[in-house]
């Protein structure tokens, strides 16, 4: 299965696939037996991030209680054998500063626990062939990948997490998580900024007369951000 196809499936799970991408996935499903399994995996991840039923009830209670600060410490266990199906509640991403300070230490630990629990839950319910690293940042939603010095960089919301991290978008806009690869981030930033990079190069070409440089900057590639 190609990376492009994986990204198209990820977009379809998030209801963001174009008609072309959807058709491409359907065609590929006919020819590729393992596609359905991967589709199921994506659905499971998406469900988890939406706070739908994936993990064991005890775990859910444990996580919520820890967030409320009312339980005594108990190790988080994997409840794969239990028949009941509780869920993970997505953390509120916007809270008053005072209340955040009150729970900040506990939340850091719990956030890490949730991240771990999500991985375990997804692995048990529906193994995926590519396991992304998991990072939950709170309260800001950040997407950025690091590149070596002199490499070109793009970022969203100014804070970084490793490539292929699972991140959530701002709750103000959408309460759904998605897996963002380096390609996704570049596409996101490229869609937003590429037209303006071209326009700026054209503006500069006009202002600087017939200089080589402004237009050379946008002729090195087919798109400014690739």
């Amino acid at each position, binding site marked *: 299965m190609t990376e492009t196809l994986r990204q198209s499936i990820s977009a379809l799970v998030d209801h963001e696939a174009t008609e072309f991408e959807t058709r491409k996935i359907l065609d590929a499903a006919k020819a590729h037996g393992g596609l359905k399994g991967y589709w199921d995996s994506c659905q499971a991840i998406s469900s988890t991030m939406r706070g739908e039923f994936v993990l064991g009830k005890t775990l859910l209670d444990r996580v919520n209680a820890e967030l409320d600060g009312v339980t005594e410490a108990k190790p988080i266990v994997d409840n794969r054998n239990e028949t009941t199906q509780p869920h993970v509640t997505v953390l509120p991403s916007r809270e008053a500063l005072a209340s955040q300070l009150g729970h900040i230490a506990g939340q850091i630990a719990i956030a890490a626990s949730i991240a771990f629990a999500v991985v375990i839950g997804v692995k048990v319910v529906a193994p995926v062939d590519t396991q992304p690293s998991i990072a939950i940042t709170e309260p800001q939603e950040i997407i950025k990948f690091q590149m070596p010095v002199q490499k*070109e960089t793009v970022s969203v919301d100014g804070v970084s997490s490793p490539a292929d991290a699972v991140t959530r978008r701002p709750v103000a806009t959408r309460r759904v998580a998605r897996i963002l690869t380096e390609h996704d981030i570049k596409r996101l930033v490229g869609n937003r900024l590429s037209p*303006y*990079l071209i326009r700026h190069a054209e503006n500069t070409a006009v202002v600087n007369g017939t200089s080589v440089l402004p237009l*050379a*900057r946008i002729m090195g590639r*087919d798109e400014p951000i690739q």
Partner: protein
Amino acid sequence: MFARLLGVAVCVCSLTIQSAFAISSESAKEILRSMAVAVRSLSYSGKLVYQRADVLANLAFQHDVVNGEEIARLRRLSGQPMERAQSGNALIEAVPGPDVLRQGYPLPGFINPEPLKIFEAPYQITLGGVERIADRSAQLVLVESMDGHRHTYKFWVDDKTSLLLRLQTLNAKNQTLEQFEFSELSVGPQVVEIAEGEESLQVKMYPITQPDSILQFSPASWLPAGYQLASALPSRAGSNRVYTLVYTDGLGSFSIFLELTDTRPEPDMEATLGPTVALGKDYALSSGALRVTLVGEIPQKTGKTIIEALDVDGLKGLLSRVQ
């Protein structure tokens, strides 16, 4: 007594400031002046290499003056053929495709008839050594940023013709952000053809437009010293009207794009491509958003400071009236 002390202090300060900019070399400035004239008045052509981070482009450049009008074209020699040209009051883009001619969006024309004030911006301009570029002898001129709000440049200028043979843009750490260099150069009249050799071309013409009137406003409470407004124009991007402001200090420039959209605000976005920084920020409105995009060859920190200094309330009101 106090007034006298104050006067002395002012004199000392002004002398210090003057000396900071007075160390620029007059002969270096003269070479830059000659270069600015040569690149616009001579007919020449050649092949050059442009490099930035992991971008490497082989390009052919041709400049001519026909009936007093400048014509310049840049053609990509690797990958998909592409050509961009500037002729008279239009920028032209040609790519292989069905033979069609389309009109593109208008580009803001240069509103300031005065020559760009490179020498008034906080640069220190000095002479370097003589080097060999494109089999020619070239004089290095170093134009160094003195305030951290612009990049540093190195120009290699042809001894015989004063044409620019090589250019490097450097950051504050003296790292090369981008560079181009002619590998061969021919001086003399040329026949300018657009996308020579292509059987069919899709051509887009972007008219360079002088605005009827310029809105007199400053979009931000702070802009770096030495930059002046070079052009401004309301235009369109899709269904949105965009107000464009272009600032330059004669070498570096940045564009600010302002628009009111009816879409949801997007997260802040940022891209750094060699010397160019692009910053996108949406401010939520009751319906839609004020979308601000800054793109320029300026340090990233300077770009962010400009964005943070934007008069958001003023811009909302202004754009509402413009639209």
